[in-house]
């Protein structure tokens, strides 16, 4: 008897694969990326009757072609066969559509365990799972991940199949005579070649993919199998014939055949109880919510609510955490650990506590934001909002799905980066992630406030608004530029968005999801941020004996050394340069550092009024807005993209742009401002 089994979970998007995984494996889920690509990889583990079960959640896909990254990831995993059993999750309310993928799995020679999920949502009909079992010759388990029903039976079935106690027979899907003839003809021609070359694929699947003109399979057939040209001419001939008889190109014809078979099977097992009304209320809501005239005001209303909830509810908690990390713990360290050498207490206070505190204050914001976002996602609104903005965002090479992360960025860039997780297109997700740091987050406001108070009284709102606008315009411009340089995954990605049915959020799912994300954030961001803040602490405290961040410290030297770079921006002192270096921890730290360095914590405004001119103050604000993401955002980009490449790219682009724009602003402003 096996001690451990691996289960691959395949299914369409939105069928509840992750919900099933969480229901089975609790919250022990691990999130990462598939090797080399930024498609999310989720793995969950649990123990069932002494056997370790590992669940691998494949990306949600409609079919097993190789046109999208998700499809390629899922397909290559399934082809490699590094699993004991495949569980095919089906949204039972969309049985006909979902069986399409099942038929493709069967074509590949995979005999999955079928999991009919969302059984609790069936209203107008019921599904005869025994009949489905007989028709497809596959084990079928009905579950409700939400209500935690059928899970025991599911584990039992998976275990039995994985250990060979139950051998699903599985049918070979057979299609129309015309298609079958074509498959047979081609199979005969290449069968010998495949056996000679010891090719691992199922012959019938390979032939169907050739007929579908699947790019990967066609390339393999040409490069590795070295199929003669005559075979491809044969496929052309078949296509001519199909076109003439069915007015349809060959790949579409095969899809049609699969859909026909899938819906035939669905019809046989569905028992209709109630007539489905012709126009549903949700159709009317959709028309309202996605029409620009009514939809845009609704959207801003919803976003305002999300903001209000997130920042109002989290503020007291964030303040509390801030007080704990910046006052209570440091004073405890000073009173109880005073016997330790000063550099140790400094390390604990200025390095570890300051760094960890900087992360922890984000926690309430993130927690509540995740909560509101998963509620929006779960009710079905998020997809509508994305659809609403799609045409506008496309002007900048982005998609509707980037709107929500960007708007969240005004609150805080960190959750905004994490919100890109909901985006289906990896390319769009990466672009959105890279432009988010230019959306002016609330941490930058204190910096603006101080400088505006010192130099632009009576024009405060105009100056601050211009900075916000500059950020958005540059973000959109960068989006447009990046979308030209990042290679699209397919000829037209993200051209459709599935609109899930409206429903009340499932609280267990919402809370569970939030918990997983928060925990992930604390762990991943915590480690990166801790390391970086200790590093910056070291720069500010060494060589031994200097004032923290003083003239003699490494940062002091770095500040002076970097000063020539900032002089063209109108900055004539090394202290603001050090403030910018510390601003990498969190943007609001810029103000605090200026205060510390000028020894005027209470009146920074006066101090900077002597050092800056209106033009250089403007340039400094612009530079602060643009120069680099804070380390929590860097950690988020690293985490979400799965590589250091993107945070480094973001920093490089932003530093350069910040300098160039601040330079321009300083010189133009010098002409107008005294």
């Amino acid at each position, binding site marked *: 008897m096996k001690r451990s089994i691996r289960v691959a979970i395949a299914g369409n998007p939105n069928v509840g694969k992750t919900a099933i995984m969480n229901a089975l494996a609790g919250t022990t889920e691990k999130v990462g990326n598939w090797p080399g690509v930024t498609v999310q990889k989720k793995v969950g583990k649990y123990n069932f009757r002494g056997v370790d079960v590992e669940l691998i959640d494949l990306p949600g896909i409609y079919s097993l072609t190789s046109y*999208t990254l998700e499809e390629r990831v899922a397909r290559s995993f399934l082809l490699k066969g590094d699993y004991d059993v495949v569980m095919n999750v089906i949204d039972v309310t969309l049985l006909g559509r979902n069986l*399409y993928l099942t038929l493709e799995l069967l074509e590949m020679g995979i005999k999955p365990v079928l999991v009919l999920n969302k059984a609790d949502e069936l209203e107008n009909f019921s599904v005869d799972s025994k009949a489905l079992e007989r028709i497809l010759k596959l084990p079928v388990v009905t579950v409700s991940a939400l209500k935690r029903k059928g899970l025991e039976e599911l584990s039992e079935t998976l275990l039995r199949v994985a250990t060979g106690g139950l051998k699903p027979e599985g049918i070979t899907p057979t299609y129309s005579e015309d298609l079958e003839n074509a498959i047979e003809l081609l199979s005969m021609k290449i069968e010998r070649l495949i056996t000679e070359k010891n090719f691992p694929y199922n012959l019938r699947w390979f032939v169907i993919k050739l007929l579908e003109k699947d790019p990967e399979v066609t390339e393999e057939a040409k490069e590795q199998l070295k199929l003669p040209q005559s075979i491809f001419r044969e496929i052309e001939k078949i296509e001519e014939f199909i076109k003439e008889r069915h007015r349809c190109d060959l790949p579409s014809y095969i899809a049609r055949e699969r859909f026909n078979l899938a819906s035939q099977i669905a019809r046989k097992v569905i028992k209709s109880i109630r007539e489905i009304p012709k126009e549903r209320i949700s159709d009317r809501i959709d*028309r309202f919510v996605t029409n*620009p005239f009514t939809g845009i005001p609704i959207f801003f209303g919803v976003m305002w609510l999300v903001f209000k909830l997130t920042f109002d509810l989290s503020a007291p908690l964030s303040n509390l955490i801030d007080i704990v990390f910046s006052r209570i713990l440091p004073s405890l360290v000073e009173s109880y650990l005073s016997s330790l050498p000063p550099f140790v207490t400094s390390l604990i206070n200025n390095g570890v506590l300051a760094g960890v505190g900087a992360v922890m204050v984000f926690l309430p914001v993130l927690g509540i934001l995740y909560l509101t976002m998963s509620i929006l996602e779960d009710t079905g609104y998020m997809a509508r909002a994305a*659809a609403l903005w*799609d*045409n506008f965002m496309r002007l900048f090479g982005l998609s509707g799905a980037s709107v929500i992360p960007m708007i969240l960025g005004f609150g805080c860039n960190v959750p905004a980066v994490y919100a890109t997780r909901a985006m289906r297109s990896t390319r769009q997700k990466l672009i959105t992630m890279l432009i988010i740091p230019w959306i002016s987050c609330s941490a930058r406001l204190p910096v603006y406030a101080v400088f505006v108070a010192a130099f632009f009284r009576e024009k405060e709102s105009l100056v601050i608004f211009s900075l916000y606008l500059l950020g958005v315009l540059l973000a959109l411009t960068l989006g447009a530029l990046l979308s030209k340089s990042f290679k699209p995954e397919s000829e*037209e990605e993200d051209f*459709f968005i599935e*609109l899930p049915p409206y429903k009340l959020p499932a609280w267990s799912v919402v809370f569970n999801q939030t918990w997983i994300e928060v925990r992930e954030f604390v762990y991943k961001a915590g480690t990166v941020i801790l390391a970086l803040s200790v590093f910056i602490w070291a720069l500010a405290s060494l060589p031994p004996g200097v004032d923290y961040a003083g003239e003699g410290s490494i940062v002091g030297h770095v500040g002076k050394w970097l000063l020539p770079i900032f002089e063209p921006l109108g900055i004539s002192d090394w202290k603001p340069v050090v403030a910018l270096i510390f601003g990498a921890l969190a943007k609001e730290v810029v103000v605090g550092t200026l205060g510390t360095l000028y020894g005027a914590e209470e009146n920074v405004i006066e101090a900077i009024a002597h050092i800056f001119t209106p033009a250089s103050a403007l340039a400094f604000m612009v530079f602060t807005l643009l120069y680099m993401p804070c380390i929590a955002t860097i950690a988020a980009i690293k985490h979400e993209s799965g590589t250091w490449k993107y945070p480094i790219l973001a920093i490089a682009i932003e530093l350069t742009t910040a300098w160039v724009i601040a330079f321009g602003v300083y010189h133009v402003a010098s002409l107008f401002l005294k």
Partner: protein
Amino acid sequence: MKLLEAPSGKRVRVVNIKGGLGLRNRLAAIGIYPGAEVTVVKSPPGPMIVEIAGTRLALGKGMASKIEVEEE
């Protein structure tokens, strides 16, 4: 006519898709292929919303103008 021009509430049949192989195949996988029946939930302004095999999809303008349909 183009799918983009089909009015809300109409049921239409896909006749042709003007686009490359990748596009046609991806659309086929979600149920948009010559011969398929599509219900128009909402036409522009805003995104085109259609229902295919029980799933509601929002299609971009570019997309909806590449799909040719006829009334049932």
